[in-house]
C-alpha cells in the first residue's frame, strides 16, 4: 500500500497528491511516469511524475479529474492509501546543455513540465517557459516554474491572466523576434502539442512532446498505448512517453484516446462521480 502524504486542490478539478513510494522515488527522473491502481476493482492508469524527493521517498503527481479513476483519486485524503503504484516507467527526458530551450506547458501538462524545466536549468540551459491554460484558475506551478526559468510567459484562452491567446502565439512571437531556439519541449493537450509541433516544423526547431495514451500494464506487454511515430508503431510506455514532435501522428492518438469514452461515462454514472 502506498499512503498519501499530502493533498492539494490546485483548481476546481485539478489535484496534487504526494505519495510515499521510496523505490519509485529512488529512480524517478524527469519525463517518466507511474501507473497506479486505487483498489482491487480499479483500473491501471498512467500519470506523469510532477516531482520526486529521493530522500523522503515521495512522488508527486498532479491530475485532472476526467474519468472515473481520476475522480475517485480526487476524493482520497491524506492518510488514505493507494493499492498499487509502479514505476518509474518510460524513458527519462534527455536532459543536456542545448543552449536556449523553450518549455511549453498547457493546462495539466504544466505538471510534468516542471521537473524538466528544473533539470534543464540545472544543466546550464537558458530556459524560456510558456504556460497556458483556458483561464487563470486552471494555471498552476507558476512560482515553481518561474524559479527555474530565465523568462516566463503566461497566456490564457480568455485573457484572465497574461496574454490572451495560445501558447503557440507566444512561441511565434519569440521566433519572429529572432530568438535563437535550440529545442522545444511541449506538454499539454494533444491538440496543443500538434499545433506547436506544426509551427516549429516550419522553422526546423527540434521539438519533444510527451504523449499520454491509454495504457494497461505500462511495461510494453499489451500495445494499448501504441502511437505512430514517423510511420513506425511505437509503445509510449517503453519507447516514450516523449517523442519527436514532428513525427507523431496526433490525429490517430486523439482517436485512440477516445476509445472508451462511452464506458467511461457509464462507469462514472454508476459510481456517482
Amino acid at each position, binding site marked *: 500500500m502506498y499512503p498519501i502524504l499530502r493533498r492539494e486542490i490546485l483548481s476546481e478539478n485539478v489535484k496534487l497528491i504526494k505519495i510515499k513510494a521510496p523505490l519509485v522515488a529512488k529512480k524517478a527522473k524527469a519525463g517518466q511516469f507511474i501507473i497506479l491502481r486505487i483498489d482491487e476493482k480499479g483500473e491501471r492508469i498512467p500519470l506523469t511524475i510532477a516531482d520526486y524527493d529521493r530522500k523522503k521517498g515521495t512522488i508527486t503527481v498532479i491530475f485532472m479529474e476526467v474519468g472515473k479513476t481520476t475522480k475517485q483519486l480526487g476524493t482520497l485524503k491524506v492518510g488514505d492509501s493507494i493499492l498499487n503504484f509502479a514505476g518509474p516507467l518510460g524513458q527519462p527526458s534527455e536532459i543536456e546543455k542545448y543552449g536556449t530551450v523553450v518549455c511549453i506547458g498547457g493546462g495539466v501538462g504544466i505538471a510534468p513540465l516542471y521537473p524538466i524545466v528544473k533539470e534543464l536549468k540545472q544543466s546550464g540551459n537558458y530556459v524560456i517557459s510558456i504556460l497556458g491554460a483556458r483561464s487563470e484558475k486552471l494555471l498552476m506551478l507558476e512560482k515553481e516554474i518561474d524559479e527555474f526559468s530565465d523568462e516566463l510567459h503566461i497566456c490564457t484562452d480568455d485573457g484572465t491572466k497574461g496574454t490572451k491567446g495560445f501558447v503557440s502565439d507566444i512561441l511565434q512571437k519569440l521566433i519572429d523576434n529572432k530568438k535563437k531556439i535550440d529545442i522545444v519541449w511541449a506538454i499539454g493537450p494533444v491538440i496543443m502539442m500538434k499545433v506547436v509541433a506544426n509551427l516549429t516544423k516550419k522553422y526546423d526547431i527540434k521539438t519533444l512532446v510527451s504523449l499520454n495514451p491509454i495504457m494497461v*500494464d*505500462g*511495461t510494453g506487454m499489451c500495445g494499448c498505448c501504441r502511437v505512430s511515430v514517423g510511420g513506425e508503431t511505437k509503445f509510449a510506455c517503453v519507447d516514450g512517453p516523449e517523442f519527436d514532435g514532428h513525427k507523431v501522428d496526433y490525429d490517430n492518438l486523439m482517436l485512440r484516446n477516445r476509445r472508451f469514452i462511452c464506458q467511461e461515462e457509464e*462507469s462514472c454514472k454508476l459510481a456517482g462521480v
Partner: protein
Amino acid sequence: MAVRKTKHDMPEQKPKDRIKNFNEVPYGYDEKTAIEEAKRCLQCKNRPCISGCPVEIDIPEFIKHIAEGDFDKAVEVLKTKTNLPAVCGRVCPYENQCEGECTLLKIGEPVAIGRLERFLADYERKKGVKIPKKAKSTGKKIAVVGSGPAGLTCAGDLAKMGHRITVFEALHDPGGVLMYGIPEFRLPKEIVKAEVNYIQKLGVEINYDVVVGKTITVDELMEDYDAVFIGTGAGLPRWLKLPGENLEGVYSANEFLTRVNMMRAYQFPEYDTPVKIGKVVATFGAGNVAMDCARTALRLGAVKSYIIYRRSEKEMPARDEEIEHAKEEGVIFKLLTNPVKFFGDDKGLLKEVECIEMKLGEPDESGRRRPAPIEGSNFKIKIDTALVAIGQSPNPLVPKTVKGLKIGKWGNIETDEDGRTNIPGLFAGGDIATGAATVILAMGAGKRAARAIDEYIKSKE
C-alpha cells in the same frame, strides 16, 4: 480383464450454456471415475510417460495410488516434482508429452494423465493443502524476477531446498501469463491464486509493483542476492504490420486478454477496466492464444467470432482440444486466408478487413507448407474488432538493462540447458530464454534452473 481402449470422458458444460459465462468448461473427474481411469494404467516397467514430462513427475506411481484409492499418497508423489499441479492438469499439452508416450496408444487412447493430475490437485485443494517439510535454511538469498510459471517453479523448488526467495513482479497480481493471458474458463484465477498461495507458504516472498529494469535493476539485485533468476516471459506482442492496424478496434491478443482476464473487464462496470468488441470479431492466428481470444469474444457477446489463419487446419498450432472446444462453441474458421488491410469509418473506427485467399506450397523451415497468396482473390469482411494473436517475442525490458548479458537474435536471453547465462550467478528460463512456448516448458526450465542455482551456490562455499 481387457483394458478399456478409450479414456473416461470428463463431463463439461454444454457449448450453448458455456458461451454465456466465464465459468470453467470441464468439471473434472469424480473419485469413482478417477479410480477407473487410473486402473487403465499398465504400470509399464520402462515407464515411457515420465520421459515425456518436462518436470519429471513419477506418473505411474501417482496413478497407482489413485487406482488404490489412496489419493493423499498420490498427491504426495505428484507434489514432489510439481508446485503447480492444478495449472498443469488444465493447460499442459499432455497429448504431446506424457500421454504421447503412453503404451496404451498402441491399442487406443492413452491413460488420461492430465485429467488425473487435475483430479488430484482439485482433491487436495478442497481438502486443504499440506506444506511439505523444507530442507534446513541455508541462509542464502535468491531473487526471482517474474512470477509466471518459470519463476514460480524456480522459486518453489529453491525454497524447498532451504534458500530464502524473493520474487519481484511488475504487475499487481502473481502468475504472469497464468493470470493475464489464460482465460478464466480454461484456468480459473482462484486456482492460480491457490497455487501461488502454496508457494508463498513454502516461504517465498512476492513483491508486487516492482518493474525490474526500471524500479530496480538486475545489476542491483546481483549485489544484494547470492543468485538471480529471470523469468519475465514473452510479453512483447507481434503485429501484422498492415495498414490500419492502429485503428480503434484493433487489439493485440495481450491487450484484449489482459483487460478481460487480469483486469476482469468481463465484469465491467463492477470492475473499472472496460473492453468493447461490437458484434463481429476476427482473431488473426491459430495458436492457443488465438483460440482463447475467439472463445472469449463469444462470451463477451460477439455474434460472430472468426479465426482467420493463412495456412490450413493441419498446420494450426493450437492444441486439438482447444480447436475442438472453439468449434463446438461456434467459432468460424476462415483458413487459407490472410489479412491485407484494415479499413475504418470516417471516425477511425474499424469496420472492415480486406483478406486474400492463400494456397499451400513447399514446406518452409518450420516443416509446415508455406502459404502463398492467390492473386486477385481479395475480399472484404465486415468486422467490429480485430484481435492480433500471431505470437509474442521476449519482453526486452529486462534483457536490455543488464550490462554484458548475452542476448540471442530474437531478443531472448541466451542460456545453456540449465538456465545459466554468460554472467555467473545470473540465470534465466521460460519464454524469455526460448521465445514463446508453453507453461509446462517454462516450468521445466524453472526446475532445471533451480537445481543449477543450488549447485552454483554450493560451489561458492
